[in-house]
């Protein structure tokens, strides 16, 4: 655990909403990510959870500079990526790679596996000649548990789990330091998910990779992450070590999210009390004033509508709630 590999400071990504046919007039902004700060230690896994539309994928993309952030800074090993000229940024890209959710739509159906895997190597001029590249690729195939004959095959010839392994191999072949995995297992069958989770675990142990795992499945995130951040409407509402967060959630949203996850055990299901959240996620184009969760929070008070709670330290957690201390006893009882 030496130092921080990723440092994100007050990152904002706002998408303009435009109106008009010839002259686009900006009539508002969707604040997909609105002031998120977090850091990931070398060799650590940071899990980002939240419902759809909370901005977790946008945050991941902004970290990789696939979406230009509106404000804030992203540092990878001390290098500020947001201010780098495109030429220099491209050189940095081999240090950070991405694994996508849907292995079918993120692999070109007309490229064979060798061509898919060598594209990154060619772009960055790694591996020298064809033989050098092939040696690198075949080592990567071994690492992700794919047979060597896969090289001349096409994506459709593989099952979902194997395709996800190809996606992982594509990220891995450049020997990156950081891998952003956006919903890496949610498109896979239940019995295959565990294979891919174990693979990610093993690769981290062997290669010392740093992960940012974005997922909506709390059980999966808990299993693989050291630190977990919970996002709601573009901002972090709670961040804590994986064990702490699940044992003792302090933010009402975290608690509600966890109580909503079904557990495959009828005895547990019958005993547990659920906090059923009312309604849907408000529109990020027009978020509620003050605390963004207040419209669905069962404990919302007047102060919550006026002041936006800052992310502050409470009992080793970082939590954005005015009443975290008072609620912690209450939440533990539920």
């Amino acid at each position, binding site marked *: 655990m030496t130092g921080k590999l990723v440092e994100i400071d007050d990152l904002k990504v706002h998408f303009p909403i435009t109106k008009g046919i010839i002259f686009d007039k900006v009539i508002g902004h969707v604040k997909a990510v609105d002031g998120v700060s977090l850091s990931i230690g070398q060799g650590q896994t940071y899990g980002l959870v939240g*419902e*759809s539309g909370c901005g977790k994928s946008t945050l991941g993309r902004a970290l990789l500079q696939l979406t230009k952030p509106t404000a804030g800074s992203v540092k990878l090993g001390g290098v500020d990526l947001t201010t780098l000229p495109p030429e220099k940024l491209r050189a940095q890209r081999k240090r950070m790679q991405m694994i996508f959710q849907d292995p079918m739509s993120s692999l070109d159906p007309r490229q064979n596996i060798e061509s898919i895997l060598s594209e990154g190597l060619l772009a960055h001029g790694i591996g020298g000649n064809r033989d050098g590249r092939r040696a690198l690729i075949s080592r990567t195939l071994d690492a992700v548990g794919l047979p060597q004959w896969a090289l001349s095959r096409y994506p459709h010839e593989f*099952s*979902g*789990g*194997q395709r996800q392994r190809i996606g992982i191999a594509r990220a891995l072949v450049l020997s990156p330091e950081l891998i952003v995995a956006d919903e890496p297992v949610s498109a896979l*069958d*239940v*019995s*295959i*998910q*565990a*294979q891919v*989770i*174990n693979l990610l*675990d093993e690769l981290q142990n062997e290669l010392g990779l740093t992960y940012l795992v974005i997922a*909506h499945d*709390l*059980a*999966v995130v*808990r*299993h693989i992450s050291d630190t977990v951040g919970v996002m709601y409407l573009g901002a972090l509402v709670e961040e804590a070590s*994986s*064990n702490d967060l*699940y044992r003792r959630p302090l933010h009402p949203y975290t608690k*509600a*999210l*966890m*109580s*909503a*996850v*079904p*557990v*495959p*055990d*009828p*005895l*547990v*299901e*019958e005993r547990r009390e*659920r906090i*059923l*959240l009312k*309604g*849907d*996620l408000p529109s990020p184009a027009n978020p509620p004033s003050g605390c963004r969760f207040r419209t669905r929070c069962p404990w919302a008070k007047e102060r919550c509508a006026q002041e936006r709670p800052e992310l502050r330290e409470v009992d080793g957690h970082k939590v954005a709630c005015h009443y975290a201390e008072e609620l912690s006893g209450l939440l533990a009882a539920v």
Partner: protein
Amino acid sequence: MSLLDVQDLSVVFHSKGREDVRAVDGVTFEVRSGEIVGLVGESGCGKSVTSLALMGLLPPRGVKTGGKAIFDNGVDLLRTDQRTMRDLRGREIAMIFQDPLSSLNPVVPIGDQVTEVLTRHRGMKGEAAKKEAELLLDRVGIPDPRRRLKEYPHQLSGGMRQRALIAMAVACRPRLLIADEPTTALDVTIQAQILELLKELVHQDGTAMVMITHDLGVVAGLCDWINVLYAGRVVETAGRHALFAKPTHPYTHGLLSSIPRLDSVRGERLNPIPGSVRDLLPWLEGCAFAPRCDRVTEACVEGPPELTGGAHAFRCVNPVLEESGQDEAALYSREVSGAIE
């Protein structure tokens, strides 16, 4: 007395120049009034095809169905004519699909889609139908139903659309609801809302429900009786307490120990089931799960195993009866799986 009695249901797809696909292969289960029965399995296990066969929604060509599905001690859903089926569908049996956006008509307001059911089956018209539709939307928890009736599907959120779809399904107080992955496309907090709603509806109306899902967590909280499917056959069937307390088929056992749980010890390695759903034997030759099973013995590939064991039945010659570490089966399995690869 059972409301729906499915006996030996099989569905075979033919296509030119290819081998027949036995998507469902001798599935038997029954559903009583007020009971929720779960069909659980991974993609390709035949759970959705089962529901389509029961609703009479399979394409008329290229499909052969066998067996019986007796509804309410009279009609065989698989053999009845289209006219009777049309009367049953929506009135007596209703279905909730997985993706609410693609099962709602995008160019028709929600209100018209709900009243369509009421007009067709309950003969309601005009203001009366509108009033009833409003009550229905209110019942499934859509706020401000009067306004929502005029809106189009794209104006509603995912959870709201699923609620609208449920409103349509329960419009005629059907006696049987078939829900095919009703919460898979939704977020967890919305999923919890929808499951609660379904539970409530079943409770209040005494409706029977067939719940089709891949999520063992969902069935644990919802279903009274659970059938686990693999490659078109039921491999284990039991009441929910029995099933989760003592998963007996190696597949069920494997599934349960391969998923990370919110309440388990963190940092433990998961025990995945090796291979993928595609690695299967045809049932005629032996157990379809044998190539992925860690308890496989020679007996597994000699012929198809039967469903045995009374109330908690399983289809396995070498079941997981108790937690035993290294036994003969485990040692043997390494040799066999080596041979299969």
